[in-house]
């Protein structure tokens, strides 16, 4: 009897171990499932639409002429993302240096929760505010017929990528050991010289990671760009014209497709490319994050 009970206990512990293990690897399972179902649903598109016409095609006109050229969407996404990041870098890194190096403790304790609040404002709310404020502003300032432009998207996305850039840059700055700063000050440098010539270079790989993660966030952002960038799938190299991103295309067009049809499958195909893009950005960023942990 006692032997049986011990055996049962062994089985129980074995099952618990397995159960915990499956939960432990759930993130791998989910990533695998996401990849599988993106591929599975885009097979129809890749097998029936010429690959080069897709990758190098310059027209996205799925309903009228059944043309699925990826270039306008890619240009739209990159244009808005790089515009946003260029605005966000000076602001984000500046704030991170201020919070991490200069600000007294009470100001830091005051600023950090506010940055966290910014990260939680839903993208549809930012899009809505952008629609009511940035869009008319751009229309008036640049005297355009319509304010829904790439610039509006870039401005809103810059704002949305700030929490990521600030918090990760600040972590990087904090990871630089105090002895680096002491050494620099002992050599006669001012505090600001210490920040720019010692701390900043030492934290630079973390700051690069912060910017890349911000870029990943911005490339994948959907609702804001859907609401304020005008959604016109044409190739334009001006920030004062409407553009359309990969994400907005998926969100806007999925509702009107026939499930299982070519258009439906094409949207999964561009989703797959988006998934791969952000995956690579995150992988590279992780390499840079790993570097600052070595101090």
């Amino acid at each position, binding site marked *: 009897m006692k032997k049986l009970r011990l055996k049962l206990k062994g089985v129980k512990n074995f099952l618990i171990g397995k159960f915990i293990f499956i939960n*432990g690897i759930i993130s791998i399972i989910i990533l695998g499932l996401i990849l599988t179902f993106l591929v599975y649903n885009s097979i129809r598109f890749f097998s029936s639409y010429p690959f080069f016409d897709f990758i190098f095609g310059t027209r996205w006109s799925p309903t009228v002429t059944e043309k699925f050229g990826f270039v306008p969407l890619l240009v739209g996404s990159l244009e808005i993302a790089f515009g946003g990041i260029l605005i966000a870098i000076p602001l984000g890194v500046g704030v991170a240096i*201020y919070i991490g190096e200069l600000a007294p403790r009470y100001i830091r304790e005051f600023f950090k929760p506010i940055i966290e609040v910014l990260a*939680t404002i839903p993208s549809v709310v930012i899009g809505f505010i952008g629609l009511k404020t940035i869009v008319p502003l751009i229309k008036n300032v640049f005297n355009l017929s319509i304010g829904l432009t790439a610039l509006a998207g870039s401005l809103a996305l810059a704002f949305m990528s700030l929490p990521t850039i600030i918090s990760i840059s600040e972590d990087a700055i904090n990871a630089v050991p105090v002895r680096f700063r002491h050494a620099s000050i002992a050599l006669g440098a001012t505090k600001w010289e210490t920040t720019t010539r010692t701390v900043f270079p030492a934290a630079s790989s973390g700051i690069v990671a912060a910017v890349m993660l911000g870029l990943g966030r911005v490339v994948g952002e959907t609702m804001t760009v859907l609401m304020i960038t005008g959604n016109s799938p044409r190739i334009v190299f001006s920030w004062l014209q409407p553009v359309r991103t990969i994400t907005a295309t998926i969100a806007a067009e999925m509702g009107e497709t026939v499930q299982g049809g070519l258009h439906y499958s094409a949207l999964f195909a561009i989703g797959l490319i988006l998934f791969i893009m*952000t995956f690579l950005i995150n992988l590279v960023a992780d390499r840079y994050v790993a570097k600052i942990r070595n101090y």
Partner: protein
Amino acid sequence: MKSRYLKQNIWYSILLLLSIIVISFVFGIIIYLFIKGGPALSWEFISQKPSAGMREGGILPAILGTLYLIIGTVIIALPVGVFSAIYLNEYARKNRLTRIIRLSIINMSGVPSVVFGLFGLGFFVMFLKFGKSILSGCLTLGFLILPIIITASEEALKSVPDTYRNASFALGANKWQTVVRVVLPQALPGIITGSVIGIGRAAGETAPIIFTVVAFSQPNLPNSIFSQVMALPYHLYVLATQLPNAPEDKQWGTALVLLIIVLFFTVIGAAIRARARMRRRE
């Protein structure tokens, strides 16, 4: 010598200015929403169904829809996330598999929300044939916030000192008993904080629910987990861009209600964390 300090002061001022700009933008958005949306808030607005093609009445179905989605999402994501964190912190060895798991969690948190929406459509709605339903939506959102819950729970488990575990082992408890009865209760505040932040995130997401659960207009309340619902973020999107001449006050009111719900969870999460920290210091 003087010029070096002058330079320092100039740069300090610039950085301070940048910080003030960013902070005031955050405050600006929130205050502006309250000013514009405040007058639209009324008991009628949050307790009535929309009428006259959503141009009149209230947003009750959207509020309730969002609450249903939040509850379902937590029921799905919390246990899985906590057990996943338990595996990583208590059971996993330092090997290649663990490294891959950590990398997967980081990458999962970087997957764009619209891609989660596509996945939910392909897997839950079509492949598992759950249809456009609360169930599909909650599963999609649950997967989306899983990295947040895992990361927060693991941090919480990590902060429990090893002396607790050793004391429990010394009393003859096995690993599972130690985790469930000693470590988990200690880690609870951190886990709750993570979940609450995850809820806030789930409440505001739009792209993942467009294809998996929300209805353009569904004034009737759901009767099963296979029903469709309205949800606040999508309702705001519809009012702002899809419905011509939607009344301005309804738009601002909806945006404000959504923001209040999200901020509510953020503040609760922060409060629990602050309390736990103070207790630890005592």
